[in-house]
C-alpha cells in the first residue's frame, strides 16, 4: 500500500516527537516509570498501516535513538526491528483485539523487548538491573489505549485538512 506524502510526514513527526519525549529530562521519581515511547508509536504505526514501517525504517529509528540517548549503537535498532517484525507477523490478529487485549499484547511485546535488552547487557558484563527495570512495560500497557486514541485522533485530523 502506497501512502501519500502527508501520512509519511505524520509518521515521521510522531516518531521524532517520541524520540524527543524519551530524551526530555524527568523528575527523579518519575524516571523508573518512563515508558518506551518510541516503541509504542512504532507499534501503533505498524498495526494501523500495512508495511509503512518497514524493518529498515525501524532499524534506522533505533540507530538515531541510540546516538541520541548514548546507548550502545545497535541496541535500540535491534529491539525495534524485532518489535516491528513481531507486530507485522501477528498484525491480522492484533488489529481486531479489543483494546484491553491489545494492551496486554503490547505488554508482552515490551516485556519481550526488555528480555532481549537484559540479555545484551548481561553479555556486556553490566550488572543486572533491579526490579524497577520491569516497570516501563507496565506503564506502556496502561498508556497504550490512550496513546492509541490520541494517535487515531491526530491521524483523523490530518486527513480532514486537505493539503
Amino acid at each position, binding site marked *: 500500500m502506497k501512502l501519500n506524502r502527508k501520512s509519511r510526514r505524520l509518521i515521521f513527526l510522531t516518531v521524532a516527537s517520541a524520540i524527543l519525549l524519551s530524551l526530555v529530562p524527568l523528575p527523579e521519581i518519575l524516571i523508573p516509570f518512563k515508558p518506551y515511547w518510541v516503541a509504542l508509536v512504532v507499534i501503533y504505526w505498524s498495526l494501523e498501516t500495512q508495511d509503512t514501517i518497514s524493518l529498515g525504517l525501524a*532499524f534506522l529509528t533505533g540507530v538515531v535513538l541510540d546516538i541520541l540517548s548514548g546507548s550502545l549503537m545497535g541496541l535500540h535498532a535491534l529491539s525495534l526491528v524485532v518489535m516491528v517484525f513481531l507486530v507485522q507477523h501477528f498484525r491480522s490478529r492484533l488489529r481486531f483485539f479489543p483494546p484491553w487485549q491489545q494492551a496486554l499484547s503490547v505488554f508482552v511485546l515490551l516485556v519481550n523487548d526488555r528480555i532481549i535488552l537484559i540479555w545484551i547487557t548481561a553479555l556486556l558484563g553490566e550488572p543486572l538491573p533491579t526490579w524497577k527495570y520491569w516497570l516501563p512495560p507496565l506503564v506502556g500497557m496502561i498508556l497504550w489505549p490512550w496513546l492509541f486514541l490520541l494517535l487515531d485522533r491526530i491521524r483523523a485530523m490530518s486527513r480532514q485538512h486537505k493539503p
Partner: protein
Amino acid sequence: MCLALQVNDKNLAHRESSGPGRWFGEDGTRTARLMIYILLAIVLMFMDQFGHYVPRIRSAMELAFEPVFHVVGWPAEALQALDQRTRERSDLIAENQQLLQQLLKVSGSVQTQVALQKENQRLRDLLGATRGRAYLFQFAEMIRVDLDPFSHKVWIDMGADKGVVIGQAVIDGLGIVGQVEDVHRHYSTVRLISDPDHALPVQINRTGLRTVAFGTGETSHLLMPNVPLQADVSPGDVIATSGLGDRFPPGFPVGEVERVERDSGETFAKVYIRPFAALDRGREVLLIDPQYVTNPLPVEQP
C-alpha cells in the same frame, strides 16, 4: 540468530501457534530480512563496544544532532525559570542566609589552608622537592538530557570553544566525577568513574597504599579488586587519587571504604568504595585545567 527464533517461538506459543506454513512465502522473506537486520545490529554493537570506527562515526553524528539537545533541555529550563520567578521571598532570604553561612565556613577553612600551603612550600623548598601544584578550574553544567541508564556518560555544556580537551578530569564539590571522553564544539561527553570499563589510580590516604579503583556499573559504589589480603584497609578510610597515569591529578578525594571482603581462598581482598561525588544527581561540575600550574598561584592574603 537463535535469539530471533527464540523470540518468535515464545510469542508463537503465546497465541496459539500459527503453524510452520507461515514461515514460507511472503513471511519467509520477511524472516530473512529480520535475520539480516539482527545480524547488522549485532555487528554494530560489537563494533561500538570493541572497535574504533563506529565510536568515531557516532561522535560525528552527535555533532550533527547537537541542536536536538538544546531543544530537549528547554522544558526543564523553563520549569526551573518559572520556579525561580515564583519562589517566595522568605524562602529566598532563608536560602541566602544559608549560603552566606556556608561561604563563611568555607572561607574559614581556606584561611587555614593558605597558611598550610605556605608551610608546605617552605618544607618542600627545604627538601629541594618539586614545587607543589595548584589547579585552575573551569565551571561547567550538565546538560539536561536523560540518557540511557546503562551508559555511564553525561553531557556538559562546554566544548572545544571553551578549550576543553579529551582526558580532562572532572570533579564536583565533593570528589572525582569522571573524565572528558569526547569533545564537540559546544559540549563534551564525560565518562563517569562508575563505568565498568573505567579504572582510576587511587591511594588510601591513611596508609598510602596505591591501587586501582574500577567502576561497577552502579553509581553507589566502586571496587578495588586487587588489594593484598593482609593490607591495612578498614571501612571509613578515605580514598584519593594517586596521580599515577597522569590523567587525574593527585590528592583529590574519591570516596570512602564501605566494606572489605577478605576471602582467604582468594589472592586479593575486595574493597568497596562509596564515591563522594554525586554521580547520579549532581548538576554542576568543575573541569580541572590539564596544564596544572607547577608554581602555586599567588595566594591572596586573607
